């Protein structure tokens, strides 16, 4: 085990203010819930080591301020992310409606290499509360429309599903780091002239 190399996974948690980002992170890393957490100002992160498929990885979980105005500094924090966790509050419809803009904002600021394949995970938090305003189905529909984002219903308060969710987050982040491995299998060893024409794009790689 000692000889194995550790991998760092950078994960960003985003979502409206008060959906439970800080609580989820603390529940996962420290296994405790407190209603004394302060509203996050700026950004903070916690790290946790875990084993995914026999591999030890370190997750660096970044918690950011939920009010949209902090975002001008976002670039510095989002860069190099391996996975983005979007959180909404199942009892607050507006937090669900903001998901699109959080996702867009992240993609703009972090500008990952393949935005359409960048891993997101959606968490519907506070399932211990009622009344519920967003059904699992509605959340799942949204996820489907975004290239099948994995969805988890969590409660940071009760610790419900939190462990599972973050494990999935780690897996997705890890897959992201390795994803490009298979990209070149499509290159044929021999030239198949018929295949190449339609796929060849005139992409100018320097376009920024």
């Amino acid at each position, binding site marked *: 085990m000692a000889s194995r190399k550790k991998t760092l996974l950078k994960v960003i948690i985003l979502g409206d203010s008060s959906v439970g980002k800080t609580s989820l992170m603390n529940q996962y890393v420290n296994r405790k819930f407190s209603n004394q957490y302060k509203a996050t*100002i*700026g950004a903070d*992160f916690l790290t946790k080591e875990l084993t995914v498929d026999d591999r030890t990885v370190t997750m660096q979980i970044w918690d950011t301020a939920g009010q949209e105005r902090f975002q001008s500094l976002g670039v510095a924090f989002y860069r190099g992310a391996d996975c983005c966790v979007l959180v909404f509050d199942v009892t607050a419809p507006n937090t669900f409606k903001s998901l699109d803009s959080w996702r867009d904002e992240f993609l703009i600021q972090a500008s990952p*290499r393949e935005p359409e394949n960048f891993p997101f995970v959606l968490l519907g938090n506070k399932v211990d509360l009622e*009344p519920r305003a967003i059904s699992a189905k509605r959340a799942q529909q949204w996820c489907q429309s975004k290239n099948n984002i994995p969805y988890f219903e969590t409660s940071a308060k009760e610790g419900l599903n939190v462990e599972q969710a973050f494990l999935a987050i780690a897996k997705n982040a890890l897959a992201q780091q390795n994803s490009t491995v*298979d990209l070149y*299998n499509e290159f044929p060893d021999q030239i198949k002239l018929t295949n190449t024409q339609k796929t060849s794009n005139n992409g100018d790689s320097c376009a920024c």
Partner: protein
Amino acid sequence: MSLGKMSQNEKDFKERLITTVKKEVKQVMEESVTRKFVHEESGSVTSLCGAVEACLSQGLRRRALGLFKTSSTTALLHKIAKHSPEAAIISKKVEELENLDPNRRSSSSSDSVTKPTLKKSASVPANPLPKYLWIRLALFEKQLAKIIDFLVSNATKYYDKDALVADAEYGTILSSLLMGPCALDYTRMKNHDHFWTDPPADELVQRHRISSGHSTPPSVRRPILNFRRSLNTSSEDSHTNRSSTQQIAKDYVETLHQNSKATLLFGKNNVLVLPVNSDLSKPIPGYLSLHQMPQGLAIKWTPNQLMNGFVDDSQDKSIFWEYALNVRLDDIVYVHCHQDSETGGTVILVGQDGVQRPPIHFPKGGHMLAFLSCIETGLLPHGRLDPPLWSQRSGKNHTKRRRPLPALTETEETSKDYVFRIIDNTCNHKDILKRNELMDTHASLPTKVRVQLGSTSTSSDSSTKSFSLDQNIPDSPPSVVVQAVCDSMKRQIISRAFYGWLAYCRHLSTVRTHLSGLVNTKIVNGVGASDGITLEKWSELCLNGVVSDYAEVYRLTYFGGITEALRHEIWPYLLGHYKFGSTLEQRNELSDETRQAYENTMSEWLAVEAIVKQRDKENQAHAIAKLSSESMSGEQVPPQIHEELCNEVFEDDSITDNEGDSLEEKETSAKRPKHTKQNTIKYVDDEEDSGGEQQAEEREKQANEENDGKNVQNEGALKNTENDLTTDKEDLEVAKEDSYINVNEELKDFIHNVIVINASVDICSLSNDNPRMTNLDAVTEENNSSLDTCIETHGLASPARSNCVSPASSNGGVYSQELLETFGLNLHRIEKDVQRCDRNYWYFMEKENLDKLRNVMCTYVWEHLDIGYMQGMCDLVAPLLVIFNDESLTYACFCHLMERMVENFPNGNAMDCHFANMRSLIQILDSEMYELMHAHGDYTHFYFCYRWFLLDFKRELMYPDVNATWEVIWAAQQVASSHFVLFLALALLETYRDIILSNGMDFTDIIKFFNEMAERHNVQSVLKLARELVLQLQILIENK
């Protein structure tokens, strides 16, 4: 398929292969900049290797060469090992690794191994060998470009005629492209294990205490003459005698990405330039890039024709090469910017000779600003833009930008032209640097002299002449060269002393001009003030209730703070609420007025709050209803569907007893109607005049009727669903959705027309001591429910909408939809943050005090709706409230406090100024720290100070310490510096300076460190240090 078409296809394919390599190279290079390391196992490394493999496989003469292993390129590597020393090294390593792996029969680097886990050196691999093994190894060992170079040079032997590698252009491009990634150091990257075993902050502090016992006192350090040495000064020059097309191709590649010689700081395509000496009538698009080279910054612009490249015949291209721009920033003195709303702006560079370079027209989208800020950063640490891009005086007129470009003068609102001067504090250092390079080159690689001198001679500085050795040297024998070097050395020693002195003078002048605004010029003596304002002192200062010696109050506070018992009395003076010299009666009068005004304002927003609350309930109801409708049509198993369908029937109370998955929904939907009925009646009693009761009753009846109707409808739906689940659910959903949309629109209409009739009865009771909260709660409740009724009625298309009279009222006006929305949004934010404000502090454990906080916050936001609530404001109110325990006084003082603080919030400019000032201060006062920050992933953006400045260190300190710090900050304005927070920040950094330096902290380290250190600082020593730093700067400026 015709021959022509076929070759076109092949060309396309090659183009595609090379494009892919380009893309991957760019990715790896970016990763090396944006992350602090490129991990050997990084996906982008694998992708790059894959792309290279694809290129090398194409057109390989497998059969002829007998390359039959699974990976023919690995076989190729082994084959060429005889002739290429680089290949031999890699070949040997590959074999070593494969021999260690018992699972391997043959070298198969491209079969399906999915988890690359390459170990450095020859430790036993725990996992299967990674893909593209040899290419990886060659990359990490920096041999890949050379190996490919070899293949390209000997392509005829190993490749088909039409292979990519055998192609004159593509082959060269391929090997040139890989030079960048080969220059990266994959082994020197930060070790994860080291990072993750980083001890927590307190352990670091502990260790430091034990090891040193005392911390290095911060001092004004003279700027050190440090030059960044170029890394591989001339390793690339061996390629210089290539043919010109190859050279062009190589140059082209170099502008695309950074390599060991140049860092790409900025790149943007489709930037328009009208080249000089061209017959063109219009500017043409091209790729603009900014490069950091050992000699300094360079701006390049390459016409698109060259970028898309290699399609036109060479004659056409050569014209474009003449159009291309290559400007060294050393030669530029002024940067003129013309901004206009139509285009993205124009930049004109003006040289020392006064000659303008062709205008550079940016496309829209903030690229010009990005370009300028890249220049500004690139000039650091020795040069800068004057005025700085982020100046202190930037006006509010640019607030729409994230990081506003300030005007030269705030007053020039109409003009959008700026002129920046490029100031090079140490252009002289650069000459020395160049000479150093020269020396190194002479010592080791005499043949490179010419090349080096060539670049040196382009320096624009006047002092260069004496060192122009290139005229004499080229054809001289080695002994002459050595003589020249000795001469240059002598001069260098003399010039170093001279430049050192000169730099120091310039440094001082920078300090004067740049930083003099940060401290007051008058140095106030702190003698006898270290105890601050004690009860005794105060009784001397406050004679018969009048305090007139304000200077002494400020002085004592600045140097010694205020005793806890007096804070509530003195803070209003410091914040500007009480006037010095006022009498007790005047202040009492002021307090009464303040209270009156506060209560009036409160009554205004409370009325709006009531409406907002109602709307919330509607939305909630709507969402819940939608939820039920969804689940009804959902794909769950039939029994569940049945249950949830029942929930839809609000009025059926018996459902509350049901159990099951959807209990929560049932409960709420079932509860609500009861609630409504009761409250509606109460509401009618309280607020409506005669006739209202009847109306309400009517409404309710209607509601019931409608709901009955709905019951029927739902039952129908239920049957339908049961009968034919699969076919009907789609329709059902659509129908449901429609009706909800209706609801929503009608409600909007309704809200829009809320007419407020007369002042509410409830508001009168506000001026009484405390019943306001309970009273208000009642109002809110009632209002909620009454509107609730309306919704339900409307939801079912009732015609009785107009009967709903607005319950909320204030001064008889109509609230616009916009106002309601804005305030509502703010209200929610406030509530969320009040709930989370310092709940572990005794004062805010009381619900009553949280309500006070909320009231103050809401009142402020109501009065400043344009500013709105922003996260952090609650933190600023809280300490004031704790001290005063009086809403209206807290409110008044908070307003004063916000006059300064509001600029820190995201719509203001102060935060960027703080960051910029921190940069300058650290550079001047602790250049070593600056260098560290710059070197470790460059966090000289100082974002880790964001929370410090936003909240005046409130989150960094415990309550008593916050109080002590805040009063010093307020007093400092009058006594020492109105930017005292900067010096506090510096003091915090300096306090832990040795820990930061010895651990080589990077951005994440420092964030972690200070977040962990929050509320654990020794505030008195930090304050003391901050005052000393102010004094240091004051003395520095005074002495010129």
